[in-house]
């Protein structure tokens, strides 16, 4: 019976792989090297220090153009910030209250922990007008929304190079090794020493890219640690249960042969 089962499962998995892999391989010529992340693998967790540094980069660099409308300040406690720190971070922005006051006016107030990250522009048109016609995408889901995920984002952030000879880069565009078509409207966002870290971590471009990518991966999949933790328990339980049922099955079928 166990041989029978192996025969049954292997082709099924093969079919699965055969059918699903091409859909991802279709994307094209750009090579995205795999990085080793703190959150890689079935037991990976987010490096809290990297998350906080990454948030600092988002706040000081990315947020000038990119919104993160799905993330709320209260979510930042997951980065290791205390409630008081989160309140202070939220209070550092001014937002327009969604509800009118007693006079029927929409007033500006200090941000609260429950607010979502304040967007740099009021709408897409304003964002385009300020960015030479290009629209900086919302970064809440960016690592899930790109083929290659976190590895791609890292490759993009570290992929700015001088254009190869013979290629003309139009005004307002930049050459990037990892971007589809190689011409990107985003100016190189990171440079050595672009931010000042409180914890003496080096501020080279690869380190900055790694930190901000870790932060953005968390923003896209804030449930990841809980998911993997629960997953280990569920799979172990299922394996145990399946083993017991298999023994039971053999016992039941024994009297038949």
């Amino acid at each position, binding site marked *: 019976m166990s041989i029978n089962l192996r025969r049954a499962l292997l082709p099924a998995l093969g079919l699965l792989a055969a059918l699903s892999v091409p859909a991802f391989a279709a994307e094209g010529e750009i090579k995205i090297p795999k990085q080793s992340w703190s959150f890689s693998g079935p037991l990976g967790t987010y490096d809290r220090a990297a998350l906080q540094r990454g948030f600092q980069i988002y706040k000081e660099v990315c947020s000038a153009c990119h919104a993160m409308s799905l993330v709320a300040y209260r979510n930042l406690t997951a980065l290791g910030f205390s409630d008081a720190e989160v309140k202070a971070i939220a209070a550092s922005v001014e937002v327009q209250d969604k509800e009118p006051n007693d006079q029927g006016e929409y007033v500006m107030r200090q941000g609260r922990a429950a607010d979502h990250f304040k967007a740099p522009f009021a709408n897409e048109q304003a964002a385009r007008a300020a960015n030479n016609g290009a629209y900086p995408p919302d970064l809440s889901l960016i690592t899930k929304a790109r083929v290659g995920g976190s590895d791609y984002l890292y490759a993009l952030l570290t992929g700015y190079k001088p254009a190869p000879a013979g290629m003309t880069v139009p005004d307002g565009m930049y050459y990037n090794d990892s971007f589809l078509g190689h011409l990107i409207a985003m100016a190189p966002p990171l440079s050595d020493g672009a931010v000042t870290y409180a914890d003496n971590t080096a501020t080279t471009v690869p380190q900055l890219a790694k930190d901000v990518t870790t932060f953005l991966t968390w923003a896209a999949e804030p449930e990841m640690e809980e998911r993997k933790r629960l997953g280990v328990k569920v799979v172990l339980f299922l394996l145990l249960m399946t083993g017991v049922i298999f023994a039971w*099955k053999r016992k039941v079928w024994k009297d038949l042969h």
Partner: protein
Amino acid sequence: MSTSSNPATGAPKKNGIVEWIDYRLPIFTFMNHELREYPTPKNLNYWWNFGSLAGIVLVVMILSGIFLAMNYTAHVDHAFVSVERIMRDVNYGWLIRYIHMNGASMFFLVVYIHIFRGLYYGSYKPPRELLWWLGLVILILMMATAFLGYVLPWGQMSFWGATVITNLFSAIPLVGEPIVTWLWGGFSVDNPTLNRFFSLHYLLPFVIVGVVMLHLVALHTHGSNNPLGIDTKKNPKDSIPFHPYYTVKDMFGLGVFLVIYAAFVFFAPNFFGEPVNYVPANPLQTPSEIVPEWYLLPFYAILRSIPDKLAGVIAMFGAIFILFLLPWLDSSKVRSATFRPIYKQLFWIFLVDCIVLGWAGAQHPEGAPLLIGRLATAYYFLHFIVLLPLVSKFEKPRALPESISTPVLKTEKA
């Protein structure tokens, strides 16, 4: 055989309440008949697990879907954000959504294996033609439901997938355009489309449940086919009661299946998905590549392999509808491929052909992939229209065993 006393009738132990109910509404007698005594061929292999698995996945999909629907907003301005709210703010919302999302892929995986099981062992042959038909109806309903559900998160692929698929109907001569407008509820895929898709996505699974019931009635009328494909009614030794033999075997298969399912849900939840569907729908920006989910790729390849739109649509639907004719295209009296040396080869080639079609469906339709897709499409129909009828006519099947007990005993000794 098992003599444990189940409170249901038929068992020696009596239970007053059960008897009272059963006398008025024989639900316990029914359950005893269909789930306990139900005579089942004793030689079913693990490929026979996939029917009950499919039923269980259907229940998982309906339950997870009901809880998703409690938190989902079917409006173009809110759908994407409401799904993200489920992922981020609803307690265990991410778990429910990933179960539902991966459940769709698991459902098709299980059902495709179930169908190919039927193809290999000739489960569509008399007297099981209607059983086969009902199964195909379930497949078609599943495809419709999956397509409708994929639109609901209102990501880029949701929107453009909906646009491409609904536009297929515009290929119908004369009334094509009005039909598409009618399907959309407007002049493009928009809020009315999303609303009706949500409504239908909630409705169709219950229609599937109804057809599954009929599928089971048809199944239990003549009983399961088996790996030898011979009738088991003649020899009473060939059948065993469904419970406990197949209940425990199905439970074991379920356990193995759940391990695989859970591995995807917890460790690779977006393995089957397209990243671009995490970008909110934008009617002004077409994604570089519009591809359906993996389980529809073979049919997508058939659609795209034919240069004429109407002919492509006809071929795509024809690829499914030709399966309804299978009991007559394959006229061989022998069911199981085990005893059909040539059909057995054809079966494996056909399986590879379907995988090739799936691959071709994921490629950009030009150059070699397009050519391969066209050849695979041609072979798909050649298999059913030419090869099967010929082979079933001229093939010399091997001798069938008298009963299950004979070969089973032989292999046990060997």
